[in-house]
């Protein structure tokens, strides 16, 4: 049992290392051909640059609709977790959001990536940031300010994908969990730094090394697809490895969640002290029978695992 867990953890560490090396290598080689290539007017004639952007730009109102949908989804997430305390509803929301924000919108309503846009906009007055992107960036933080990481639970397509593949969670030792969690800070710092650099170095690494966006778009660099697949396989045994150990937006959410007045709680008035919820949490977010809210990812597994919600209690 123990050796298997350590093998898997070694695999996780290796994967992350691979990811980092790959990213570093790519960042060195990559050049933007678009800038060097001849532009339309240079070519002359009736030449039109073919549409290569993925996904296609949409009408402004449809983008606003996406933001509204995201807000609604977070509202549902809060309601379902804090009020209904129902894992089933959370699962339904997860599937719905994965379908819409993930596969239909191809992972492009992405607060994670928007970190870069926002940081560039903050430093470069010439950079025009669409209001929609700003909204996408701040909305989940706003919700986290009051209720915690509702965005992570079910709404974020990256999280949703990993949430669904989690089959047999193993407990990550707390120290390792904390150590790996530090990677997020490095990633966040690196991403912001690269985004702020002037041109040749300038890069949006969060988007380029998004491990799952390739699945949503059903296209992408092969190595990214493989890394994504590896994350998913790992995600069968380790709860949400990307969210916990790499996601830079998670860092921001965590900070903001510390201020939240509400959030998931192991109800103090009727708890049993039996520890089964603590056992059920795949993210190590319940310590000493209490929720560590900054780490809680709104999956509602603890509610489901409570014997008071279990078969014997329901029979009564």
């Amino acid at each position, binding site marked *: 049992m123990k050796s298997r867990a350590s093998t898997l953890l070694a695999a996780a560490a290796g994967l992350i290392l691979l990811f980092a090396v790959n990213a570093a290598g790519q960042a060195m080689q990559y050049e933007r051909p678009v800038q060097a290539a001849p532009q339309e007017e240079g070519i002359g004639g009736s030449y039109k640059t073919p549409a290569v952007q993925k996904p296609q730009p949409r009408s402004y109102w449809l983008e606003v609709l996406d933001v509204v949908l995201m807000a609604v989804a977070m509202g549902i997430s809060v309601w379902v977790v804090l009020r209904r305390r129902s894992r089933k509803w959370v699962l339904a929301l997860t599937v719905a959001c994965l379908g819409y924000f993930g596969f239909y919108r191809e992972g492009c309503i992405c607060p994670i990536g928007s970190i870069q846009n926002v940081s560039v906009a903050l430093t470069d007055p010439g950079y025009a940031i669409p209001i929609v992107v700003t909204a996408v960036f701040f909305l989940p933080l706003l919700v986290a300010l009051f209720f915690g990481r509702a965005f992570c639970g079910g709404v974020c397509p990256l999280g949703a994908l990993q949430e669904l593949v989690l089959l047999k969670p193993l407990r990550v030792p707390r120290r390792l969990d904390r150590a790996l969690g530090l990677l997020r800070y490095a990633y966040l710092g690196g991403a912001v730094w690269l985004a702020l650099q002037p041109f040749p170095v300038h890069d949006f690494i969060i988007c380029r090394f998004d491990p799952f966006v390739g699945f949503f778009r059903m296209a992408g660099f092969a190595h990214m697809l493989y890394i994504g697949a590896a994350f998913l396989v790992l995600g069968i045994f380790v709860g949400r490895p990307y969210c916990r150990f790499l996601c830079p937006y998670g860092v921001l959410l965590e900070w903001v969640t*510390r*201020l939240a007045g509400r959030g998931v709680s192991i109800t103090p008035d009727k708890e*049993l002290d*039996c*520890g089964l919820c603590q056992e059920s949490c795949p993210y190590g977010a319940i310590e000493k029978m209490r929720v560590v809210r900054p780490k809680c990812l709104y999956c509602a597994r603890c509610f489901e695992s409570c014997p*008071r919600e279990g*078969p014997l*209690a329901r029979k009564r």
Partner: protein
Amino acid sequence: MKGKGVEIRIGLGSCGIAGGAEAVRAAIEQEARQAGAGAVVKAVGCNGMCHREPLVEVAGSDGGTVLYGNVTAEAARSIVRRHVRPGAVQARLRWAAERVAGLFGNGGARARLAGYRVDRGSGGAASYLGKQQRIVLENCGEIDPESIDDYLAREGYQALDKCLRQLKPAELIQIITDSGLRGRGGAGFGTGLKWDLARRQPEGDKYVICNGDEGDPGAFMDRLVLESDPHRVVEGLAIAAYAIGAAEGIFYIRAEYPLAVRRIREAVRQAEERGLLGRGIPGSDFPLRLEVREGAGAFVCGEETALIRSLEGERGTPRLRPPYPIQRGYRGRPTLVNNVETLACVPWIVRRGAGPFAALGTEKSKGTKVFALAGKINRGGLVEVPMGITIREVVEDIGGGIKDGRKFKAVQLGGPSGGCIPARLAGTPIDYEALASTGAIMGSGGLVVLDDSDCMVDLARFFLRFTQSESCGKCTFCRIGTKRMLEILERLCAGQGRSGDLENLELLAGHAGRGSLCGLGQTAPNPVLTTLRYFPEEYKAHLLEKRCPAGRCTALIRYQVTAGCTGCTSCAQVCPVKAIAYRPYERHEIDQDLCTRCDMCRQACQEQAIEVVSP
């Protein structure tokens, strides 16, 4: 209330320390040091609200006080910040910065103080304190017991001063007699009369002894008074010595009360240093010398003659009276033995005169009595009530009723010498004679409240086991009679009672009571006799049906999981003998062969799904 010159008092009695008051003190001192000038931190005794320990009280310069209960170290820090305006500039800046930083920290870090607040004017605290009348406890929890200045600031040693300057011993004894003060140790002998007898003894060496050998299980008022207001007892003892003309006083205090011993020693040292005792008293020929001796752990030494034997270095066995210790006591000289609480009343009576004291209480029992309220009660602690108040008022109004909403069954009064008074007699007033008529005694003041989960046979066995093991063995009826009684009770609790057991029990009880020299043997049958009188049906259930109605006697009960079980495994996790299999989400089962009836599963079960059955 916030400002400079704030005094923060921390209750540091034994029970406060047991409740974690040392950690609170450390936190408060650290915070106050940071604040620089602006706060005085003071370790005080216990104010009697033991159910809210640790207690912290903040007294402002305007005289107003705010009391906090169940204080944690975290809450203590917040209390300092709430009430103290720091003198140092750095502290002010730092606190302001930390307050802002606190907004970003974990929400729980800033403990909410409202929950710790004890409002004396309303709710539970008001009914707890409202019916009390504090004479003995007037300073407890408000002064630093290790500081004589605190006591002096509260009219301390004025009574002694008044005695030495204005009153002749006879006049003093008249005041005590008029006040109607009776011995608080249990028997209730008139204090004035006792003093008068002692004074009339021929001249020569006389001794006064403060009896602090509080051996009654369930009583702790002497400890609390000694710990929280030691100077009051010192002053009382000095006055008694003056009244009878004794030159030597001895404190005899249980070794189980190390803090009380330490504080009394300190109090005597301070009083001598200030010239309040001993030959230093200006203008008087009253050379009093005080000594502190530790008891060595024998219940019977609470009896006067046994106590004196023990002081003389012998086995603490009582002897035949007369001669009474008043006539021939310690070292064969007249000796006055008074209980701690009795002596603690004295300074108040001398200061205020006999009238106010006599105005309280009933015809024959005057003044107030301190009770150690404990057991199955919501608000336990030390309460001082005027005589004549009913037991029901004490239990329901002051104590806030029975814990966990269970049924009030009886009170046990007076420890192993006392008896059980059933709930239906709870209208009995607190009065020496009225209590004696129920078969119990006033005793030293242990008042243990029992609910319907307490077995009376088991309780009788408990007390008898105690008296049996504490019996000094001098009198045959006490030595062997209690042993035989205990055997019968052990049999009943094990479900092996025989016919005739109850009759034998009563017979033995009568003989043991009559055939013993001292209070221990004479009163030892009281717990058995009162329970037999008021709860015969429980004895019969044990004897005839082999069952324990209250579900206490382990040989007669079984533990069982009810349909309320949710399969949370809490019980399986605590079971020390693994009699419950670990099967989450399934109804648990208890293996009766392995079960030791240790009750841990029932305590662990939050669903109340484990019941005790007595077939």
